[in-house]
């Protein structure tokens, strides 16, 4: 007897919003992806003899390094009242701006944003910088002298706490915490909410502060690149890669059901055709040497989307430019793609942005949505001498025009969590 499936609704991406190191809106991000213009700089806060890491990919035009959010500088058109600012960390500020942008991009009316059928899933690691300052203040000035909203501004759920309140979200809301797979988990489960008919629209938001406190602790793991040259520090799949470059910012995606797309008469970027996840069951921080969990996640995603490797045109790899992780992914790609490995284009846009941690999955899904709509494959930037493990993979060095049918976006996080999303031409 055949399995009984509940009626499934198709899910589409209808809006995107970006606050990233390579652009603060979809147009700028699209230009950077096409021109392979990276967002990595010599990062002033690392310019100290005792800090071996020298580069990062900070967001531009925002100044969020002051302790007091009222000292922060926001570019036009963003302007937030004090009562909104006081519970934000830098990441949730970027998230607020990215969501505002995505709502406009999807041409959503206020009544479509604040209603029972619209929810929000977010991902962030919280704001360790703000948390540190508040705990120091508690020890130094006294327990009752801590800012009343210090907790809300700093713990891991800060992005959804703030956005749900400020945008008056009425439907499902929660956050995901699987490190570098977090916002792909948020997108996957948001997709399910719509597919199962529980919500007609979901906002997916990934965000990171992208400052000293979020990036530099990875130096202790020896996970960051010590290469001081912004033009080559992030080079996924290159034999000379030596670690990742940290970034921050936010990306917001608007996911909607087919009925909503039709009712509102909006042209979607692409369909979210399915997703899959699997875990390595191997090590708390080191990826499985053969990429076993990632391969299983890719297969499940393809199966859920009812496509095969033969349908795939492009894979946005997780590859962060670390020596071990990139090899694991190469092996997983070979295992899944088989005979298609030489055809399907693969690149990691982390060469341009650096690694966005909890932001990465949503940001790169947004990049894939742009690539599907605008018809291009982002090139594998900064790749000169591919690691021998990449042999047989199609790693285009430059961005190429292409009519994409099916795109896969990979993400992997601590604990060996792997999440893959399949996007399809709408």
């Amino acid at each position: 007897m055949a399995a009984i499936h509940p009626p499934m609704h198709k899910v589409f991406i209808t809006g995107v919003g970006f606050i990233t190191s390579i652009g603060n809106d979809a147009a700028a991000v699209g230009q950077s992806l096409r021109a392979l213009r990276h967002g990595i700089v010599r990062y002033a806060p690392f310019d100290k003899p005792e800090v071996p890491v020298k580069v990062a990919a900070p967001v531009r035009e925002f100044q969020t390094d002051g302790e007091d959010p009222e000292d922060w500088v926001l570019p036009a058109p963003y302007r937030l009242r004090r009562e909104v600012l006081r519970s934000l960390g830098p990441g949730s500020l970027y998230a607020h701006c990215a969501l505002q942008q995505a709502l406009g991009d999807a041409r959503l009316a206020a009544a479509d944003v604040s209603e029972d059928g619209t929810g929000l899933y977010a991902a962030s690691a919280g704001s360790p910088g703000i948390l540190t300052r508040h705990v120091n203040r508690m020890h130094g000035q006294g327990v009752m002298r801590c800012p009343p909203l210090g907790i809300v501004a700093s713990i891991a759920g800060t992005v959804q706490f703030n956005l749900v309140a400020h945008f008056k979200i009425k439907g499902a809301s929660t956050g995901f915490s699987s490190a570098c797979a977090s916002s792909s988990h948020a997108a996957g489960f948001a997709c399910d909410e719509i597919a199962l008919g529980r919500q007609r629209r979901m906002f997916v938001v990934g965000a990171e502060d992208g400052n000293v406190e979020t990036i530099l602790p990875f130096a202790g793991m020896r996970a960051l690149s010590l290469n001081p040259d912004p033009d080559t520090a992030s080079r996924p799949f290159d034999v000379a890669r030596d670690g990742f470059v940290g970034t921050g910012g936010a990306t917001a995606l608007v996911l909607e059901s087919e009925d909503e797309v039709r009712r509102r008469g909006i042209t979607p970027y692409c369909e979210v055709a399915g997703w899959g996840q699997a875990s390595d069951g191997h090590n708390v921080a080191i990826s499985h040497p053969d990429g076993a969990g990632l391969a299983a996640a890719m297969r499940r995603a393809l199966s859920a989307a009812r496509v095969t490797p033969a349908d795939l045109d492009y894979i946005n790899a997780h590859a962060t430019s670390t020596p071990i992780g990139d090899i694991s992914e190469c092996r997983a790609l070979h295992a899944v793609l088989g005979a298609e490995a030489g055809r399907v284009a693969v690149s990691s846009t982390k060469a341009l942005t650096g690694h966005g941690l909890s932001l990465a999955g949503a940001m790169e899904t947004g990049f894939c949505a742009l690539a599907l709509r605008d018809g291009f494959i982002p090139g594998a930037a900064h790749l000169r001498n591919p690691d021998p493990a990449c042999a047989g993979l199609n790693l285009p060095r430059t961005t190429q025009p292409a009519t994409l049918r099916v795109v896969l976006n990979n993400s992997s996080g601590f604990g060996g969590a792997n999440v893959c999303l399949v996007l399809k031409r709408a």
Partner: protein
Amino acid sequence: MSEPVSFEPASMSPAPKGPAGDSEAALRDSLKRCSSATVEAALAYRKRRDPDLLPSIIIGIVERYVESDLRGKLTEGDDDVRLMEDLGVDSLTMMEIVMLVEEVVGMQINNEELRDLRTLGDVKTFIDCKARGLPLPKPAKFLPVEGIVAVMPIQPPFLFLNEARVGADGATAKYRITGHEFFLQGHFKDNPVMPASMMLEALGQLGVLYLLEGHPPAEPGKMVGPGTIFFTSCEGVRCHRMCKPGDVLTLTIKPKRTKMPLATFEGSIRVGQEKAVVAEEITLTYGYIEVPQVLPAAAVGAGEPIPFKAAVNG
């Protein structure tokens, strides 16, 4: 007040630890978003401990937390300006204000002390009493409709107070015009409008409640007799706005003179922010009776205000 105030004279408070201690630079930094007049007043207060400086410091600090489009209400308004309704100061912002006041004037304020602070005048009085080491005024008492019915000689359907808050310096009440008031059937034909005389009646009723709640305090063993209070006169009455079913009247009275057997109040009624009625003087006559020997074990229906800290989830 539910528990005794733990007052420490400001000059004896230990300075807070850490970098924001008592240096002038730290004070200036803490007050960097306040007006220069506020900063100067705070610096002078640190030197002289002159309580007369406190009102301008307090207003300066509150102003810093009020959105710029609402600041006019703070500078133009009087002590009746309400923190939450008029200035948008919610309970979390109140905590921020309190922390900065504590830091600047060097005093400790407990959560329990904040729950009755509703107007700018309440805040000024509170800080002034603390700084001078005076006892705090008895906080306003909240009475729900059951508590009002229990003490008033006037009863439905002629009672026009749904809830009230009574303190030494006056009383406020709310009354929602339901449309079912018997006199609206004829006032006017097919056009129900609350009669001006009934608005004055409502203000008078609030005056009655004020007297029955023991303001001003009677001689020992005596109390105002519910059957002794009657209307005597009113002057300077002006109506500014028609009030109709659905309107919520906010009634306010303040004592101008109270000397047995006459109590004179000024009264006003608002609907939202709109002025509806002003009465320059409403005078009631009253008398004392002996306090009954056996008092009920518990006051009827004395509603508890919502605890200040209960407004937070998580």
